[in-house]
């Protein structure tokens, strides 16, 4: 099947982020994922339609094998219950993580650092008097600790992609060993998993095998590696980056017409 390619300008950077995320989920067809609220849920819907029809979706409010017939707005949306195999509560929804059943976790966040640590708790100032208070831990800690791998999605902004997060909510590759707070490799604390990729609104980022520092793997069509580097809060290695495959009109059509016709998620 030949697919029509969408031109640059025919989709927004956020739509591109969601499309590349959905494509990445092709790696998890038939696998079990715990999907966070917001854009990860949108990307999963697209993935189920095009790339990963047998992906098994768990949600932190206790649905196993959820099959929403239309896009949920809330993490406990009624749309998630109907058609799922089992509907319990949050503990039962999260325990597949701690039982090591979850092949991938898929989350957003507000800040990410070069080790793939994610912050969704506060930005700036002090914990007790933050400049910007955020949503807190909800699922983000647990996905980072227990999922066999983590996929992270976040709009690309210089202040959000930084040297080290203001608060370590979701553990990436270098995490804090308590009580001292020493930075150590996650394996040293007996944590499996770790982030496999960070998909922004400009490109796809992976992590070096040795020092586990983020590098640019792919830049989206119409974006240059230099632009990405300039919009990143640490010295991002872009030397190995290649252009991502183009986006198909069908992907954008599904997002706009089938998945989010009301633009609830403000992707456009």
């Amino acid at each position, binding site marked *: 099947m030949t697919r029509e390619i969408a031109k640059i300008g025919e989709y927004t950077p956020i739509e591109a982020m969601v499309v590349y995320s959905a494509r990445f989920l092709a790696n998890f067809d038939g696998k079990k994922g715990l999907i966070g609220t917001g854009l990860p849920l949108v990307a999963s819907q697209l993935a189920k339609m095009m790339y990963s029809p047998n992906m098994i979706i768990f949600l932190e409010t206790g649905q196993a094998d959820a099959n929403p017939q239309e896009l949920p707005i809330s993490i406990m949306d009624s749309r998630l219950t109907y058609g799922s195999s089992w509907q319990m509560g949050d503990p039962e929804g999260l325990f597949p993580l701690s039982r090591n059943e979850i092949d991938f976790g898929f989350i957003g966040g507000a800040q990410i650092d070069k080790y793939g640590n994610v912050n969704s708790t506060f930005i700036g100032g002090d914990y007790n008097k933050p400049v910007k208070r955020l949503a807190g831990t909800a699922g983000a*800690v647990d996905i980072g600790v227990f999922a066999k791998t983590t996929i992270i999605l976040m709009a690309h902004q210089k202040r959000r992609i930084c040297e080290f997060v203001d608060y370590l909510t979701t553990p990436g590759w270098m995490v804090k060993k*308590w009580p001292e707070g020493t930075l150590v490799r996650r394996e040293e604390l007996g944590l499996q998993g770790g982030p496999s990729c960070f998909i922004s609104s400009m490109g796809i980022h992976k992590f070096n095998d040795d020092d586990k520092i983020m590098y640019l793997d792919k830049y989206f069509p119409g974006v240059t590696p230099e632009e990405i580097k300039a919009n990143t809060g640490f010295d991002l290695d872009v030397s190995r980056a290649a252009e991502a495959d183009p986006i198909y009109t069908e992907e954008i059509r599904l997002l706009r017409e089938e998945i989010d016709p009301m633009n609830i998620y403000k992707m456009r």
Partner: protein
Amino acid sequence: MSKVVSLEEAIRAIKDGDIILTGGIVEDRRPVAAAMEIVRQQKRNLVLIGTCSLCDDIMVGGGCVEAYRGTYTSNGAFGISPNFKRRAEEGTIIFDDIGHIDYSLGVMAGQAGIPFIASKTCIGTDVLNPAYDNLAQVREVARNKDVLPNKKYVLMEDPFFGMGTVQLIPAIKLDVCICHVQMVGEEGTVRIDGSLTFDHMAALSARTVIITAERVVPESYLRQDPNRNCIPCTSVDMVVEVPWGAHPGQVYNCYDMDIPFLQEYSLSCTTQEGFDQWAAAWIFLENGHDGYLDKLGASRLEKLRAVPPYGYVPRNKGGLK
């Protein structure tokens, strides 16, 4: 024995300084009408456990809450809980973040009547940062300090399976648990549709349990299928019928969310004055919840009513446009 009381009477049982958990999560199946009554009764110094979203945030705006211990402080798609956000950024509310499995295990331990449980759940993260441990400050606000643990966590080596360092997590116990549900019997047997969130566990470990429900139904009806019930009558103290008691959120099989109302809430409450005006318009009404429903109007509510068998209003039927 019937446990049916008025909303006013039920909320009178809550004391200043109580440690309280509200059912549902984010904007859905939350005891919003109960929270508004708490604001009307001007409760003070409450300690919120679990999450601080919609109904909790209304209590924060109403000046009822001084401390929070939990995992989530957002209204989801409608933004960070505005009253909590403002007070956190002012530094005028005490908060102590814990993880989501952390919270789950705490509540599970509470319902099992055990003191603590072990997990790797927050290992490596700032949840365990001693500099961010505000449990002692939370305890200062609480009336019954023995309901809260002495310590936030303890690290220890797993002696059984070689899992390395694990975190001991204390049980979560409560003075008060308020849940809004689809159905309750007059003796207190609860049936929930959709996510149980934490209700099925939290209600078992609270000293006082208040159930508000869309409908109070004959106890005998619910007892025809005890497997389908979610909280036993033996754990429930008071029962209140409050139709649309979770508006503007969803209640599975009953109604969908009122998106414009939720958006208006977020926009209104960025300042305390904004919240006060919003509260004057929606909380401090004559006839309390009945006044609220009448002001919303029957036709607005009818558009939100769930469509079987889905339990929500499918968008292609135009309900929520």
